[in-house]
């Protein structure tokens, strides 16, 4: 069986809480990253706060599968991706963030998303995978479309930032759609 944690540009890893906390404390000083990825007011956290948070998330319960993203070329930790199954319906939410700006818009996130989709459909045997994003995050929208997601709904004016109301977008991908894509790329 092939290594399902290895893509073309990145691999998925699990890191110690200390490593993640250190990286997050640094990444989350970037307000643009926070405002692209989150709806909460941008804020900064101490390394200690992040470590405690990670430790609370840690441990393989069946509702949270969290990975770090490392580049294949130089083994650099550049972000995180996680998938959260809702088992009864075989649906899951995914979240992804690249903390290292130098790697934005260059296919690293898309590659990590492809890996997590494969994990969701092949290993977790899910029926569908969902995500949400802000409409002003056009780079993310393109990346998710490339990975196979389709826009399923729009929450009109759910965000108020810099004096402007913007939409929230819901995207999803079904198992059959993903399988068809694999046939096309194989």
């Amino acid at each position, binding site marked *: 069986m092939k290594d399902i944690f290895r893509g073309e540009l990145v691999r998925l890893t699990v890191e110690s809480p200390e490593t993640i906390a250190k990286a997050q404390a640094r990444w989350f000083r970037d307000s643009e990253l926070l405002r692209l990825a989150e709806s909460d007011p941008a804020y900064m956290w101490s390394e200690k706060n992040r470590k405690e948070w990670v430790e609370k998330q840690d441990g393989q319960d*069946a*509702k949270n599968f969290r990975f770090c993203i490392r580049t294949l070329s130089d083994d650099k930790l550049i972000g995180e991706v996680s998938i959260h199954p809702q*088992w*009864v319906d075989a649906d899951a939410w995914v979240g992804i963030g690249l903390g290292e700006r130098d790697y934005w818009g260059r296919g690293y996130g898309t590659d990590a998303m492809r890996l997590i989709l494969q994990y969701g459909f092949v290993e*977790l*045997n899910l029926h569908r995978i969902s995500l949400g994003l802000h409409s002003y995050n056009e780079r993310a929208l393109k990346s998710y479309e490339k990975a196979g997601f389709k826009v399923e709904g729009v929450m009109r004016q759910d965000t108020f930032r810099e004096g402007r109301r913007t939409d929230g977008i819901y995207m999803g991908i079904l198992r059959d759609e993903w399988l068809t894509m694999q046939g096309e790329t194989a």
Partner: protein
Amino acid sequence: MNEILKGKLVHLAAVDPEEVSKSFAAWNRDSEYKRLLDTEPPRLHSTKAVKDWMEKELEKYSDTMYWFTIRSAADNQLLGDINLDVVGWNSRDAFVGLGIGPRDFWGKGYGTEAMQLALQFAFTELNLHRVTLTVFEYNPRAIRSYEKAGFRLEGRLRGAILREGRRWDVLYMGVLREEWREHHDHPN
């Protein structure tokens, strides 16, 4: 939508350790009950020990365990418990265990109906693909009951139990989603 936890003889209800631990401790003093249910040597536990154990189980397995008390439809009497334990969500399989405490209610269809309700819950509410159980060779009443509910014999661990100077098999039984559908529409 139908009331899915209610049958003709029994209904499935919550597990409240405070309320039921005394009965559970009493049933466990019946060594036959205990030996039909478990392979470990019967041990006697205080009501408090049973209550603490139940609370711990409920807390520890809150994501994967669906545990019900079995109560009579007629007068809500506590008759036993049934537990669906999802062993792997990605495989959609669960282990089920069932016990009827008061001997007056053995062999009268109460357990069978509780199992039927649990299967309905497993297949229509949890959307599982299969349900698995183990039963001991010396418990033909249970084997018959499980067959009635739709289970099929899938395998046996030969001589896995040594009791009263004899070796007995542990039987594995299972029911698949499609079989259950079929059986549910046309029970024998």
